[in-house]
């Protein structure tokens, strides 16, 4: 009798077979914030004759790291969501197969960061401060006009940012402060952060916690009216009664950082054709027009028409901060580490 | 029947059996007697197959069993610690050997009952072995060894772990049971009384060899070596200083012997008080005198500090410590220091 007990165990153990991707599915590796309208995706599935499975693996950084670690046996066929802050590492680790989509022609050159077309730009967004309009009006508080204003007593206890180690808007905002304050001089970016800490900044591990749980206008029970989010976030807070958004973003010069998101075909895919079709699909008008409402970002395809709310309430900063991807790649960890030491400990 | 031929075993560099030969006849009970470490248990284990000899052979019923695996030899072995299976009840323990022989359940039950009846444990079938007394455990172990009708029963100090009173009672019982079944048996013990009580013949072992083999009576009355004599508690041993033909010179005088001797045993059974002037009388002072009920045990200190021990009937007058006495040994036996031939 005890034998049978053991036997059952062994059989169960042998019956364990890893899940294998089937030929007619295309696995999209992406970050937790990826979203697409079901009908848009369904249309692609129908046209390409494949089923798309979406594998969300944390924030963009974790996604890239995980893909590097499982390079030998890729998690999927296509990766969407690597942005300019992590692009350097992904390219250095040879994650992608080059592919030049015919639709790339129309995309403005400022978004094309890889000459070999190993990655293709899909969307961009500016990481900016968002604020709760009602709170600022009710308290008669002026908006911060520069990053430095945030260290003033007026804004004590009001700001929530994301941890750059675990969140890509967090990293983007960190880069904006570096561009603004520089790494040397009398007042470096670290001095700025030290002042922010003194002013009781709150650090969330990810954007969704910051926006939905900590931000006053994010729908949760948050207590802070200033949050690091996207310039394109306010259209999502349009009040049905008033037709006006409850939040707005601050797009003053140098206060935002431009993030460009890319798609790449993962080295090792066994479904190259479908993967290429998928890249074309991401650049195509239906997906590009679906993007803003699903992911708070702007399409790179100029032919895509922006939704009404976006045209009205989505702001595009004139002079967002930018940084060369090689610079980012060279210092990213060093900066995150320094930030962690300054802000969290 | 059983024939052990010049078996040698050593563990590493230590020889444990140094050429042992032994024959056991059908229906005979042979006792292996000796101090711990003499190799008696190892010899038993060689016969059982639990130990492989470096040389020599073991024959049973006219053929070598050396290459027969343990479980096919059809022998029974009772261990000193009884080695009852703790996870089985009494009946299951006894039935184990029958189960291995694939005896059908109905017959198995009958034979288990018979075996338990033989050892006087009727009704104990369902008992948990952990809850048995020492004597009961011994009987279960015996029943377990008997149940498969072994061709040869071996018992390794089967009473060793029991107290003296129980031992005395059980040893008689044990002999009776073995007799009744008509088994051939090899019995290992370090207790001469046990050996006397149970053995048809006994083999006294020392340091890996058999020093003497014979009926208990023969061995006791005529030990052949100083070791055998001492092991049987015969300590009136006088070293031979010089020997010329039949005359052995010792510190206590000259004695007539029939064979070459390293020492002489003045067998206590034949010692009597004598006239100090009688020829061959040995004088000494009383060192100790113990009243034993039907007799006295006297210890006499003779010349050269040699101590002699003997018994006197209680009818005699009780000597005092320090009294001077003389004794006359009736039987003087030649002893060898080591094994004889």
């Amino acid at each position: 009798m005890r034998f049978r007990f053991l036997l059952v165990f062994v059989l169960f153990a042998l019956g364990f077979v890893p899940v294998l991707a089937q030929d007619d599915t295309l696995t999209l590796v992406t970050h937790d914030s990826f979203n697409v309208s079901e009908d848009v995706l369904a249309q692609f599935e129908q046209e390409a004759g494949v089923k798309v499975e979406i594998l969300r693996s944390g924030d963009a950084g974790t996604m890239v790291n995980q893909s590097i670690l499982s390079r030998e046996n890729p998690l999927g066929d296509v990766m969407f969501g690597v942005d300019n802050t992590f692009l350097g590492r992904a390219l250095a680790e040879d994650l992608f197969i080059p592919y030049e989509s015919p639709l790339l022609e129309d995309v403005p050159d400022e978004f094309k960061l890889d000459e070999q077309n190993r990655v293709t730009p899909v969307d961009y967004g500016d990481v900016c401060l968002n604020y709760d309009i009602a709170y600022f009006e009710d308290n008669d508080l002026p908006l911060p006009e520069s990053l430095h204003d945030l260290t003033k007593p007026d804004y004590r206890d009001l700001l929530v940012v994301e941890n750059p180690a675990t969140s890509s808007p967090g990293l983007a905002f960190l880069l904006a402060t570096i561009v603004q304050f520089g790494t040397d001089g009398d007042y470096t970016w670290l001095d700025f952060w030290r002042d922010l800490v003194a002013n009781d900044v709150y650090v969330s591990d990810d954007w969704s916690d910051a926006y939905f749980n900590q931000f006053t206008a994010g729908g949760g029970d948050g207590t802070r009216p200033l949050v690091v989010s996207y310039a394109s976030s306010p259209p999502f807070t349009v009040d049905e009664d008033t037709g006006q958004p409850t939040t707005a973003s601050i797009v003053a010069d140098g206060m935002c950082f431009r993030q460009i998101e890319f798609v790449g075909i993962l080295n090792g895919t066994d479904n190259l054709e479908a993967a290429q079709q998928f890249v074309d699909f991401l650049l195509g008008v239906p997906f590009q027009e679906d993007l803003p409402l699903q992911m708070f970002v702007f399409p790179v395809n100029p032919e895509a028409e922006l939704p009404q709310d976006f045209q009205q309430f989505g702001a595009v900063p004139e002079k967002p901060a930018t940084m060369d991807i090689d610079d980012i790649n060279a210092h990213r960890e060093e900066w995150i580490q320094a930030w962690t030491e300054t802000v969290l400990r | 029947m059983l024939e052990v031929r010049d078996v040698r075993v050593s563990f590493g560099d230590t020889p444990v059996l140094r050429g042992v030969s032994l024959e056991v006849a059908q229906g005979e009970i042979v006792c292996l007697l000796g101090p711990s470490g003499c190799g008696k248990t190892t010899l038993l284990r060689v016969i059982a197959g639990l130990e492989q000899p470096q040389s020599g052979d073991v024959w049973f019923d006219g053929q070598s069993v050396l290459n027969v695996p343990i479980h096919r030899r059809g022998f029974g072995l009772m261990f000193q610690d009884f080695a009852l299976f703790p996870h089985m009840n009494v009946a299951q323990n006894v039935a184990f050997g029958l189960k291995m022989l694939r005896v059908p359940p109905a017959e198995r039950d009958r034979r288990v009952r018979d075996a338990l009846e033989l050892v006087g444990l009727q009704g104990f079938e369902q008992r948990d072995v952990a809850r048995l007394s020492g004597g009961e455990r011994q009987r279960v172990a015996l029943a377990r060894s008997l149940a498969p009708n072994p061709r040869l029963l071996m018992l390794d100090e089967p009473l060793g772990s029991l107290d003296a009173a129980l031992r005395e009672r059980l040893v008689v019982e044990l002999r009776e049971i073995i007799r009744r079944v008509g088994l051939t048996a090899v019995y290992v013990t370090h207790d001469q009384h046990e050996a006397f009580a149970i053995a048809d013949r006994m083999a006294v072992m020392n340091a890996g060899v058999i020093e003497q083999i014979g009926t208990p009576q023969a061995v006791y009355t005529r030990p052949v070596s100083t070791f055998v004599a001492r092991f049987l508690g015969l300590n009136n041993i006088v070293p031979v200083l010089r020997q010329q033909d039949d005359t052995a010179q010792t510190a206590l005088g000259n004695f007539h012997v029939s064979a070459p001797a390293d020492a002489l045993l003045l067998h206590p059974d034949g010692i009597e008080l004598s006239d100090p002037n009688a020829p061959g009388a040995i004088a000494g002072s009383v060192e100790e005198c113990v009243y034993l009920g039907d007799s006295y045990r006297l210890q006499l200190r003779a010349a050269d500090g040699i101590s002699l021990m003997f018994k006197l009937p209680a009818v005699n007058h009780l000597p005092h410590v320090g009294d001077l006495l003389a004794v006359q040994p009736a039987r003087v036996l030649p002893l060898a220091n080591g094994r004889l031939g």
Partner: protein
Amino acid sequence: MDSGVDRNRPALGGLWRGLLLAPLVFLALFFFYPLLSIFAVSLAPDGQLNLGSFVEIVTSAYYRETLWFTLWQAALSTLLTLALALPGAYVFVRYRFPGKSLLLALATLPFVLPTVVVATAFSALIGPRGLLNTGLMALFDLDAPPVQLERTLAIILIVHVFYNYAVALRMITSFWANQNPRMEEAARVLGAHGWRLWRDIRLPLLRPAILAAGVLVFIFTFTSFGVVLILGGPRFATLEVEIYRQAANLFNLPMAASLSIVQIGLMFLTMTVYTRLQRRIAADVVSAGYVARRPRNLRERALVLANLALLVVLLFAPLLALVLRSFMAVGAGFTTQYYRLLADNPRQSVLFVPPLQAIGNSLTFALATTALALVLGLITAYLLSRRDTGLVRWLDPLFMLPLATSAVTLGFGYIIALDEPPLNLRASPVLIPLAHTLVALPFVVRSVLPALRSITPSIQEAARVLGASAWQVWRWIDLPLISRGLIVGAIFAFTVSMGEFGASLFIARPDTPTMPVVIFRLLGQPGAANYGQALAMSTLLMAVSAAGFVLIERLRAFGMGEF
């Protein structure tokens, strides 16, 4: 004739002898090799000796502070645990009250609960969305949760006490109960009473047990991972969390490896201290022992009640809250929707597979782990039960080593070591049961070994002589005698695998997540549905662990196992 006994246990065939090597090979491949790879990566990241990371650990205030925090939070947790467990032990040793043995047994339950479950349970009790806060908010009509413990040191310490209270309680209680009461009686006759009795007599006499319990709790809290990661927020990091952060978030493998080495070293030291202390406990036990009696007066009754109340509140309130909360809809009505949601996998979900499949994965991994750990553990136990080799004394602690190594380190080691053919397993789900087996192996060995050692050679020989072949001896004698130990070991392995978090977080692929990993992912997402699913899943996982625990306790009642 002992020297001859083992040489002639049922003769070992060549195959069998080769089998004995299996656990050693396993240990070499899946423990030492990854560990050595960590050494290589940390000492020579680019193929050349480079102690840069170590220098950085020593020179940078950041790492010194991380180490310091790890140390003092562990020390503080240990002190708190002891401070609460000591009066508890006093009550358990001195007084008799209904349900005593049941309570003492139940108190050990947290020990087998996965950290993720415990973290979720505490969040369900005192988190911002927990029962306490929602209750208070409804009661006093508050806008914000009044109890703000998330992301504080306090909640880390509370959970650490929750985990370890019973461990300390049991260790001290069993030591104390076996102590000779005459010593204390003598001291009282000599005039000691009140706090002097504690200071001069009781505490010094209990010192070995208090120290051993303290060191054990220190070990557990020093390597705390899930609790700090989930409840502590980004501001707190133990070494273990920092290793994970450096490797998974910052991709700084040399630094992660160096930190791992620091941790292994410190843990090994502490383990050595612990085994020494434990030997002393065993030697000090006297058979006389205290006799418990009913509390007599009001003061004694209050003391007993206070301690029991603490036990019940500390241990059961969070677990109860977890279960209740998992059935509570947003508007506070009863619902089973969170459980039903577990079967769904909408494309918007952060999970690649429906949560239900994670349960399937966890079960599959746990069964594979159990099978593997049983086979290897059994062979290892045989290896260690052989009395004839001096090798055994050396092998025994070797097989205990995985217990001293943190799961995160292990997972990290797998990632960097098992990436080349023929052991290119990095991207394979097989890694998970392998890692779990390593963690479970010591439990199986410790469960089987005492039973195996109780089988004297003469029992096996008796069976041989009675006509059993070598195989039959194993089948009819060894197996039945060790079966209970095997079952206990199996349940341990199963429970350990179901709840393992640290290593799984590293090596589980998104397409084959385990329950704890899914709970962790769900906890990180906004929305009542995600949180509710995390609660529902934690409740299920708790049920599995608790069932395993009850089985172990029942089997252990028959005196099995060395834990």
